[in-house]
């Protein structure tokens, strides 16, 4: 972690001020998570993590002890305390994804990139982290890469995704098996005939 100074700039500054203004006088500490998130966004090009200097700045801005900021920052996996690669792959390993093959996805990523959970590739392109449920269970298994969800994965799709990201090709977030959101695979399966239930007669 660096010891240099940190200042919110540009739109991040505006967003931080807006977050603080949301809370009544004396309750500014409520904005800590929003500020940590903004600080991380502002540092996106530089490893997408929150530096010690940023946390010290936030503790000053919100008039709260540094250790309290640190507690919040270390509690949430969304806040990175170490630099991550250009593409931060957050693999969901919780029960529904696990049952649908998250462990195979992890094995695919690990063999493709040669890294384990919590590690970054040498070229600083990819970081793999295993996280708890990301709330996309109906499209399990899934990963989050930076800000986007990639769902309905298979090891082959996952490897292909990594290839395209590495080359800089465009990728489409969302379900990777062609379905729309979480509709059944192969189109609607039920209520094919008869009146739609919400239509009277």
């Amino acid at each position, binding site marked *: 972690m660096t010891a240099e100074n940190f200042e919110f700039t540009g739109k991040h500054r505006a967003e931080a001020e807006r977050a603080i203004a949301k809370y009544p006088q004396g309750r500014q500490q409520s904005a800590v998570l929003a500020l940590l998130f903004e600080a991380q966004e502002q540092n996106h090009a530089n490893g997408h993590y929150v530096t010690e200097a940023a946390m010290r700045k936030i503790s000053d801005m919100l008039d709260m*002890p*540094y*250790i*309290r900021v*640190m*507690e919040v920052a*270390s*509690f949430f996996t969304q806040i990175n305390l170490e630099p991550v690669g250009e593409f931060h792959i957050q693999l969901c390993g919780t029960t529904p994804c696990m049952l649908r093959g998250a462990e195979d996805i992890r094995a695919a990523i690990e063999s493709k990139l040669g890294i384990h959970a919590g590690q970054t590739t040498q070229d600083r392109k990819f970081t793999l982290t295993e996280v708890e449920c990301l709330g996309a269970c109906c499209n399990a298994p899934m990963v989050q890469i930076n800000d986007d969800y990639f769902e309905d994965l298979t090891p082959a799709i996952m490897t292909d995704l990594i290839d395209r990201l590495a080359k800089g090709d465009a990728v489409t977030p969302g379900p990777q098996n062609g379905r729309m959101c979480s509709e059944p695979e192969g189109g609607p399966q039920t209520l094919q005939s008869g009146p739609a239930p919400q239509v009277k007669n």
Partner: protein
Amino acid sequence: MATITVKINGEEHEVEQGMTVLQACEKAGVEVPRFCYHERLSIAGNCRMCLVEVKPGPPKPAASCALPVAPNQEIFTDTEMVHKARNGVMEFLLINHPLDCPICDQGGECDLQDQAMAYGRSGSRYDENKRAVKDKYMGPLINTIMTRCIHCTRCVRFVAEVAGVEEIGLLNRGENAEISSLEKAVDSELSANVIDLCPVGALTSKPYAFEARPWELKKTESIDVMDAVGSNIRIDTRGNEVMRVLPRLNEDVNEEWISDKSRYACDGLRRQRLDRPYVRGEDGKLKPASWPDAMTAIAKAASGLKGTEIAAISGDQACAESVYSLKKLMTALGSPNTDCRQDGAKLDSGVRAGYLFNTTIAGIEQADALLIVGANLRWEAPIINARIRKRWLHGNLKVASVGPAVQTTYDVDQLGAGPETLKELADGKHAFAEVLKNAERPMLIVGPGAVAREDGAAVLAAAKKIADMCGLIKDDWNGFNVLHTAAGRVGALDLGFTPEEGGADVAGIVADAKGGKIKLVYLLGADEMDLTAVKESGAFVVYQGHHGDAGAHAADVILPGAAYTEKNGTFVNTEGRVQLARRANFPPGEAKDDWAILRALSETLGKPLPWIDFDGLRQSMRGEFPHLARIDDAEAATWADFGAAGPMDSAPFQSPIENFYMTDPISRASETMAECTQVFVLDRQEKGTGTNG
């Protein structure tokens, strides 16, 4: 407060509304196991050990520490559901707790150990790997073995709420949760209390590590003398050695906390001790001597001297009995030159209200405005500082200070640095005078830095003027307080150990010794004054005390006495509360009880004191000063006139304590205190941060 009726295990009990179920059970004498709940800290509710069954309520156990009582509630602590719940919680707690009780310092006094015996299973069903956590650095006093931690967060809440320094936190979450101070020493004078609070062996005492087992120790209830608060302590000894000092509960004084100095200076009792008499020889060097030789040397020096040529100074840790003996001896010798105010405090022993902490420590909790004059409370009386913080956290307490700008654990309005601001206040020209006037229970604390100066009497008079003018003195309230730092000071002032008519005070004694008017100076544990001047004056110096400190270096004859753990004695704290210190071990070598030394000396000097044993001395003292017989009582003093109005010097007030960890011969001899000095005082000064930042 309204009371309501609840049924606990089928029996009806009246409890106060607003209590928690756990408190209600406690009041009814029903035991509820707990780890995270502590009555002096906020409620966390994270250990789940205090589960009970409550009706009406959901059909599952409820955490009693966080559940308020309700009318007609039925509480069960002895049902199948409760047993099963406790059993389950205990099993979870033990999953990651190592089975290292045989090598754990907490063994024998561990809540987890005791409760696992009472509420746990007989064996473990857990076959997986246990987690291991890296130990943390928390300073020279707190030893950490973090694998043992059960995350009750008592330490986090203590340092945030009571100590007022938010430096410990719970990082990460779930299985990775860890207590940490981010590898910083916890910078509080009360930090070591987390060791007592820790229900397991995660935070243990570093200086006491692997020293003794609790069942080997003899426990003696006594009084601390490191400051004038008179914290109640328990001295644990093995054989003749003091192994550790722990706090003892006293709601009126220290609640259940003690300062780090009170707790850890005790290793200084083993070093630098005077264990035999010494007499300065012809060559100017101190040589070991026998008791009769030392006494004869004093008798020789005293022979032919007039009473006015003899002076006595009593030290900061002298008990009332020895001061009384010395006073009687000086009176018998005809000497008016006696003083107990080594720092030169201009306090008059005539008016008791003029030198007491009249509000009392517990009384702080009723105050609603506070003016601090020339005090650094964190260093001069950490326990009183903690009480002010407790009151401040409840809200509606305005605190202002005239004196050194120091770190505090509550918001302080810094009005000024010295007497000029005080004068403004006394003249009613300052805005804060209005705050005091409008307050219902206003308080004023005069610190040692305000009275231990040339114009001390004038400062005291100005403070008294503020007290009178702003209504600090009411029928049931006395808001005027003098803070002392010397444990023996109030007792000595009560006994009138100040100059008699025509006698000299400490400064006068030093000057007269230089001028040849005083030829014999008797120091009863006096180490905190200008002793080089006394030594160079040519007067014959006798030092009676327990450590080879400044006083002993200046002496021509050294009489080895007893330290505070080694004698029975009466101490009067800054509130005027009379408390008894009890002997926990014996003085080393040939050293003797202080009263016995003075009795023997009086015999040698041909003016025998009229008692032959300690009880006789106590009886005589209590006969003359009846309030010293009223143990544990802080008698209210009558308000009268004191101080001497006059011009005040414009020099700012300064706290006499430069280093909290070394203020007396015992703490100066302590290795642990030396380490604290390095970490908390010297390292900070080098970096230029901390109190001067």
